[in-house]
Every structure is written in structure tokens, then in C-alpha cells.
């Protein structure tokens, strides 16, 4: 047995004894019903999601399927200089092809660990979104890790059907989002208030999160 293994076993043994040293006060985990704020029958999840996402400082552009490419084109034109590199990190191959076509010559080659630091915009789709908190859920399922956090601008494409009512649903739903090596729930642009409580965005992650909400 390795030293590592015996240290782990020793810890387990000590924890076992410590647990027994006091009476068990809670035998069952209580119902989490009170945790849920938004239920599945909420009439318009897309509206709620858009409101909450805006409240935490993300920008939301609402389009229908036909308007998606134009919206992405406009966002790229707004945020990125003509020579700025764009990384496309999509699980949905069809969306990836469309976004890559829009990025055109600015598309970064998707072949090494270092590329993200050279990119100005990361375009991703999402595993799902959460209406209650206005959050995006993005994982490494089919996506380059951190394409949503390293470049200064994150463009996220969300389909209305992907919106879950509540955070609770993320943990109870059948999505495979949490099976990935890395999953991030994003609830706003990167921010700090460390210096005298003054809010500054874009400290390490993106200064702007642009959501294109497709209904």
C-alpha cells in the first residue's frame, strides 16, 4: 500500500471515530421544496430569463431562428476589430458551422491549449440556461474549455427550449452538463469590487456577456 493510500485510509478511520463521538442529530436530508423559486408552469420562461440575465449585467438580444446569423454578425462587428481573433466553441455542429462562417478569416484555429489568450471573442452555445437567476450553463461537453471565460467578450447562443425554470432543475434534470470535466454556471460578466467596493467588470473573465436568445 502506498503512503498516499494509507494516509487516506487513516483519515477515513479518524473521521469514522469522530462521527461516532457525537450523536447523529439529522437522520434524513430535509425536503428542498422551499429552495425552488420558479416552477415549471411559469408562463414565459424566456421573458423571465431575459429579465434576470439583464439584471445581473448580461446583454440580451432576442431573435427568431431566421434572425440569428444577422444578430451574431452585428455583435461581432460591434465588439471586435477587423483583425480580432474569434473562437467558436459549440456542441451543436450546425451552429458551429454557421458561427464559423460568420467569423470568416478571423476564426482562430482550434488546435492548441494556448489559442484562447489570443482571442478577443468566444462564441458558444450552452448546455442549458436558468430562468430564475438568469444564468448560463456551459460545459466542456463538445466545447473548448474556457472559451467562455478567457476572451474579453463572450457571445452565448441560447435557445428558448433550453431554459430551465430554476437552479434546482439543473441538479434534478437529466442533462449531462455536470458529467463534464468542467462545467460553469455563469451569472454575469466577470466582476470585482475589491478596491473600495467599486464595481469593475472584466477583471479576469469577459467584461461583456452578449446573449442571443433564439425563440
Amino acid at each position, binding site marked *: 500500500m502506498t503512503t*498516499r493510500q494509507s*494516509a*487516506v485510509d487513516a*483519515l*477515513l478511520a*479518524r*473521521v469514522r471515530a*469522530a*462521527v461516532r*463521538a*457525537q450523536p447523529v*442529530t*439529522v*437522520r*434524513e*436530508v*430535509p*425536503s*428542498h421544496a*422551499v429552495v425552488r423559486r420558479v416552477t415549471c408552469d411559469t408562463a414565459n420562461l424566456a421573458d423571465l430569463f431575459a429579465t434576470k440575465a439583464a439584471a*445581473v449585467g448580461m446583454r440580451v438580444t432576442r431573435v427568431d431562428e431566421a434572425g440569428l446569423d444577422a444578430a451574431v454578425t452585428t455583435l461581432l462587428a460591434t465588439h471586435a476589430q477587423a483583425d480580432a481573433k474569434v473562437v467558436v466553441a459549440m456542441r451543436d455542429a450546425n451552429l458551429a458551422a454557421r458561427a464559423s462562417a460568420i467569423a470568416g478569416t478571423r476564426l482562430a484555429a*482550434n*488546435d492548441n*491549449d494556448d*489559442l484562447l*489568450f489570443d482571442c478577443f471573442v468566444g462564441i458558444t452555445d450552452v448546455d442549458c440556461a436558468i430562468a*430564475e*437567476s438568469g*444564468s448560463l450553463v456551459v460545459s*466542456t461537453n463538445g466545447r*473548448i*474549455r*474556457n472559451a467562455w*471565460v478567457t476572451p474579453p467578450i463572450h457571445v452565448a447562443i441560447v435557445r428558448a427550449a433550453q431554459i430551465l425554470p430554476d*437552479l*434546482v432543475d439543473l*441538479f434534478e434534470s437529466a442533462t449531462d452538463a*455536470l*458529467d*463534464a*470535466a*468542467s*462545467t*460553469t*454556471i455563469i*451569472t454575469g*460578466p*466577470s466582476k*470585482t*469590487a*475589491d*478596491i*473600495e*467596493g*467599486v464595481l469593475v467588470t*472584466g*477583471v*479576469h*473573465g*469577459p467584461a461583456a456577456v452578449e446573449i442571443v436568445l433564439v425563440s
Partner: protein
Amino acid sequence: MNPLIAPALPFDMKPRAREAVRDLKLQQFVGNATHLKDTQRGGIFDRDFGAEYDALRTVARDTKQYALDHLDELLERFIANAEKSGATVHAATTGREACDIALSIARAHQAHGRAQSCVKSKSMVTEEIGLLPAFEAAGIKTLETDLGEFILQIDGDAPSHIVTPMIHKDRVATAKSFVRELGARYTEDPTELTMIARAHMRGLYRAADIGVSGANFLLADEGSAVICTNEGNFDLSVGGPPVHIVFVGIEKLIRGARDLAPFLKLLARSGTAQPLTIYTSFVCGPRRAGEHGGPKELHFVLVDAGRVGVLASEKRDLLRCIRCGACLNACPVYRKVGGHSYGSMYAGPIGAVLTPELERAQGGANASQSGAGLANYPDLPRASSLCGACYEACPVKIDIPKFLLHDRTRLRERGLSPKSEGATLALWRWLAERPTLFRMAIGAVRLHARMLGQKDSRDERAWLTRVPGPGAGWTQSRDLGVATGESFREWFSKRGSR
């Protein structure tokens, strides 16, 4: 280790507290920031949970208590699942052991004696075990990537708040250290200062050999860790370097994602009045086949450092703490004396009870400590007015006043407490006068308009409910006979005329 958070023992709190109450700037910054956060916390829970807030806290309390009461099962499950995901799990009894594990991981990756570098995301447990000094001594250049921790690091300062570590520092100090340490041009603008730090760190992320972080939660079912940040620095710290080490106290375990929602909903609301932190990041094993980015090796170092002893003690409840910082913001004493007065990385009410307990439970395992517990921190149990604000603020309902009283009684029994002076009412009066003094102080030093702008009548009410007339609403629920006789009046009378 930095003596601000790891002082010589026994620790005498009084000189630091005296200095803090005389420091107008500290009074202004800490007073305003904590006051504002405390008010905003109340506001967001009113808005989002209303009358159900208390029920939510009860759910969180019982869910975490369940985890502690079954920690052996959860730990076993976590280890099995983490290893299944490809991570390596280590166990450390002491802080020193935890550092040694990390050093041996680092050495295994060192190429031909080349100097190594590390990017580190904010973590309380790494402060506790003294990882940074251990890495620096071994020649591993380590960068604190959380902006507040970074500023403290380049100044040789130490965190004074669990969530907002540089709450005691201002922009002028930051501007000066950026000129001195980074060769930046002088600016006091927080946005410009932040961008200077960002630019400085970008290259260091790319080049780092090792990433280090703590964790807010460990999920037994998934074998993964959950890390909450606002800056996104964890994601960058774990995404770049080929090796990542997560240091985590064993009390962070919960059953799994199925139990996570109550804590996530409480944590950021309690700490900073946000619905969730900007980034809630899950890490499950190293990078997978075919993936770009992410560590090739992921290590968990499970840290005891006194926790097992606390688990076995009648203070098991303390391990429910999710380090949200709400009790610090709510505490009238923390607001006056600041974080460094507590002589620990855990300041405020939770620190006052947890610090002696962790020290005792380690039984002198650390060279700098004796394991004497309370006798090493005789002032901490008195650093409270027992107003109950910490308990009311605590999202997992830790009855901190109960434990403080318990410690006071033990100190008295052991003859370590001064004779009863009936000073508690004087303390209340003193605290009640402070808002006026704050306002006078404000005229003397620059105050950022944002802080003033957000003070409203609601804020005043919050203060008034926290500082009732002498003893009001308090003597009913607390035993005055036990609570009195503490040292606050002493400190304040000694510090001379205001």
C-alpha cells in the same frame, strides 16, 4: 507565515483592537462596507424569499448537518468517485503535511531544476496551512489571482475578511503598490487599477506550471468540487497549467449536486447580495481524451488540520460554516476592530469560536502552536456583544453566541477571565454612539461617493435594530449573569479620550 493571521501565541487581541478603533480610515472603510453588505443581504432575501427565508436556512442547516453526521460515508463515496473520474486523492493530518504533499507533486513535474510557477485562486484553507510561504521557500513563484488577494500579496499584507479580503485597504495604497511592484503609472481609478492587474496576470496564467485552488463544496456522488468566484480566476487557474491541486477541508463535503441548490442560493446572497456568484465552477477529474485545455493531473488534498477534532467535539456545528462572511458584516464588534484583530484568517464571530477550536484540536501538531486552544486566544470569546446578529445572519444557523458563551464560561472556570465588571451596558452605549462618530470621521477623510450614495433610510433602520437601547430585546434571550464582565470597556477606557 504572516503574523497578522498567524500571530505568536498566546495571542493578545487588545493592542490590535485598540489600534483599529483609532484608525479613522479603517473605521470608515470597514464600517461602511460591512454595513452596506449587511443591509443589501437583508434586501435580497426579502425580495427573493420573503417569509420563507427562515425555512430555507433551516433546510441548509439540516442538509449540512446531515453531511457532518455522515461524513465518513460521504468521504468514502467522494474518494471512490473522484478516483473514478481520474483525480488523485490525498489526505493531510496537518497543514505541514498538506504543503509537503503539494511540494512532492510539484517536484514530480519539475524539469531539470527549472524554477516553477503557480497560479492560485482564492482559498481560505491554503492561508490556514501556509501554502504560499511553503511554495516560496521551495522556489515556486506563486501568484494570487484574486484581485484582492493579489494586492495583499504584493504588499505583504493579509486578508481581513473571508469574502472581501482587502476590506481594510484603500485605492491609494493599491495605487502606490502597483507603481512600486509592477512599475505601473500612478492611478487611483479602480477600473484602471484592475486592468493593470489583469494585464499583469494574463501572461502568468499562460506560463504557469501548477494551478492551486480551494473549494466551496465537494460532491460525494459526483466526486467533483464546486468553486465559486466572481472574477473567473478559478477557471483560468485550472484551465491552463498541466497540474491542478485542490486543497479542501473535509467539512466541505455534501451528498452531491442534489443537495447543492440551497447552499448556492444562500452563499452569494449572504456574502455579497448576489443571486449567485458570477462563476459557479464544477471540476470533475482531469481533462479527458481529445480535450484541449484543463489539467492533465487533478489532485485533491483533503485537509484535516483540526477539523476531525472539531467533528468529534460538542462544537461539530461550527463545521457547517460555508464561509459566506455574513456574520462578519453583521457584527458590531468586527466593524470596529477589523479582521486583523482576530489573529487568524478566520475573523469575526465565526473566527472567534473556530480559531481556538481548530488550534486545540490540532493538539500542538503544528510547530508554532501548543494546542492550548482557548488559553491561546483568551480575548476571542469576549470579542462579541452577544447581540445575536451573527446567528440571525448565518445561512446555516450556527448559534455562534451559544458557543461564545460556552467559551467564556470555560475561560472563567479556568481562571483565565478578568473579574466581572458589568461592562456590557457600557459597551452597548459606546457602540450606539458610533454612527455619529462615523459621520464626523467621514468629513476628515475621503469617502467614495458610491458608499454614501447607497446609504438610505433602510440602512439606518438596520443599524437601529442592531443597536437597541441598553440590553433591550437581548436580556430576554441571553443570560446576563454569564455574559457580563468582559474586556471591551477595558480596551476603550484605556485608549484615552476620543
